[in-house]
């Protein structure tokens, strides 16, 4: 759109608030944003933001602690080489430099992370970076630790960042992502924690004017993983694409909350999260909020969550929320489903000689592959499918493992 247009923000009439719904308080007005722990009450399941979370299993993340500093961080290119030109890595005190510049914590756990940690790892990206940067976050023990990462892309940057988590950990993590004007950036966060690990994270994301950000989250392991993502735009024509994949084993709680805010005109957002749940007590939660503010004419937003329940006894909570305060938009769609295997798909594969077990694996692989292919960066797609195949290959026959590897 080149045509200049006038935006009028409606004002509520105190005598008749319903005459003008756009000026009613939104979740953004109701929910505090603060670096102070005291701004947020101790979480309990009566609070909307925590209603699906087993808060008793992560209560250690609700009060300021002394971090163990056992978590090991390595940053390099994905092929193992040293950082390419255009990349700068630094450590700053929390609150200095670029840290703490993207919005403010949106819940108690995020404020605790901020107040418990001491430093931030800052990764600055500038120019055309050919291959993905890999940030390895390795948990070296179950002592409570905090990690704060800032990813800042300058204007016009093209770059991809992969953040991998593995090992044993109880980690409070804060991530800030800020992208400059007309940049084109992807960030991929992989959680492959060992059994028993806990990870409570908060991503604060600011997408620059005319910029495109692909934000992917892949969570394949951990006793409790809860990642909340708060995002907004820095100007018109921003494009946000959030993808999520999760695989929940018995007894695990894996939770993703995507909070997309359209605060500028002509921006686009897509949120697609898909998960598979396996076994008794496997619990996934996806809550997708999309808030379209009165200022965000021409918004195009869509969010989707699909859950595949592999075996009985798993629970998937899926909750899309839309708050639309501007009627002049292209779209604000949502879809959500929880289902089991399609018997006809399984029969078709079986009728071609593929055993039921292998057929189930193929269907699950396909369920995720559809989404992974969307990422469109071969190095990252291959890496993700490797990770998913490894998860599916548990107990795989040798011959079939070979076939899967050759794909």
């Amino acid at each position: 759109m080149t045509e200049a247009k006038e935006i009028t923000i409606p004002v509520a009439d105190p005598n008749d608030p319903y005459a003008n719904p756009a000026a009613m308080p939104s979740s953004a007005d109701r929910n505090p944003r603060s670096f102070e722990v005291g701004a947020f009450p101790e979480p309990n399941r009566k609070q909307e933001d925590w209603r699906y979370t087993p808060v008793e299993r992560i209560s250690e993340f609700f009060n300021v602690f002394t971090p163990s500093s056992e978590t090991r961080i390595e940053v390099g290119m994905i092929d193992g080489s040293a950082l390419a030109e255009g990349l700068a890595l630094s450590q700053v005190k929390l609150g200095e430099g670029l840290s703490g510049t993207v919005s403010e914590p949106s819940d108690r756990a995020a404020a605790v992370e901020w107040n418990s940690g001491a430093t931030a790892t800052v990764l600055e990206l500038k120019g055309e970076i050919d291959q993905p940067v890999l940030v390895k976050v390795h948990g070296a023990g179950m002592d409570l630790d905090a990690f704060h990462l800032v990813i800042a892309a300058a204007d016009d940057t093209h770059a991809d960042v992969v953040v991998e988590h593995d090992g044993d950990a109880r980690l409070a993590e804060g991530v800030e992502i800020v992208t400059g004007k007309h940049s084109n950036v992807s960030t991929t966060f992989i959680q492959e924690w060992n059994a028993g690990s806990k990870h409570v994270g908060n991503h604060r994301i600011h997408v620059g004017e005319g910029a495109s950000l692909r934000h992917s989250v892949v969570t394949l392991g951990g006793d409790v993983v809860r990642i909340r993502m708060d995002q907004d735009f820095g100007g018109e024509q921003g494009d946000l694409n959030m993808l999520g994949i999760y695989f929940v084993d018995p007894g695990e709680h894996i939770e993703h909350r995507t909070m997309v805010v359209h605060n500028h005109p002509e921006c686009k957002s897509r949120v697609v999260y898909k998960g598979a749940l396996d076994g008794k007590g496997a619990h996934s939660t996806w809550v997708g909020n999309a808030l379209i503010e009165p200022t965000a004419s021409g918004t195009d937003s869509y969010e989707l969550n699909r859950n595949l329940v592999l075996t009985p006894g798993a629970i998937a909570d899926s909750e899309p929320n839309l708050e639309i305060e501007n009627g002049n938009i292209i779209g604000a769609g949502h879809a959500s489903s929880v289902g089991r295997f399609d018997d006809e798909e399984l029969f078709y594969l079986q009728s071609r000689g593929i055993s039921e077990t292998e057929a189930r694996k193929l269907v699950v692989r396909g369920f995720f592959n559809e989404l992974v292919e969307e990422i469109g960066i071969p190095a990252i797609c291959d890496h993700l499918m490797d990770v998913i195949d490894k998860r599916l290959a548990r107990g795989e026959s040798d011959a079939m493992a070979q076939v899967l590897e050759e794909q």
Partner: protein
Amino acid sequence: MSTLEIKNLYAHVETKDGIKPILKGVNLTVNSDETHAIMGPNGSGKSTLAYTLAGHPKYVVDEGEVLLDGEDILKMTPDERAKAGLFLAMQYPVEVPGVSMTNFLRTAKTEVDGKAPAIRTWAKELSEAMKRLKMDPKFATRSVNEGFSGGEKKRAEVLQLELLKPKFAILDETDSGLDVDALRIVSEGVNRAKEANKFGILMVTHYTRILKYIKPDIVHVFADGHFVKTGGPELADELEENGYDQYLPEGADSESALA
């Protein structure tokens, strides 16, 4: 030389109105290199016979046996039946999102043969078979049957028939939904596969037009859950002329036969 013997087969489905018997004493013997056409009115149980042989969980066998070279396949899971040499080309092939045709075919071939096919010869075999069926090479990278037209799905079924080399192929209304050109290409594919591998064919169809391309040795009329008449290719012409009315059971409520 292989034999498929269906002996006194009874099967039912469970509907919300209770148990509904569909197959009522099916008897048939098919040998390698024979082509049997199974014709009959809608709702007579032809497709049920096809799916029951392949082991679809919806159909419950009450009685009888189906011997493939003496082994009762009714005791096998669907994948074991495929490995034993049975292939069902479906009327409505199922879409499997996110699983590429290449991956699917290679996985199926590995399972049916008990070993992974040699990479180089396999790729060549696949691309040549696709070329003969006039399939766009890009189908190999697409998800199984996803976004395929009706005709493309049927070609993909015949492609699998050529690659998996079964002992017996059941073609369930493979001719439905095909235009004249597609019918010819698909039929030629079946004939080519049969020429190469000498399998037996059970071809379920309503219409005689596919029989112009795939010549049956034996034609059966199937009505009310069992075979009621068997003859040579001339029987198909007679059916084309006179329809199936005379084969509907005496005094039967034609509604139930058509249900």
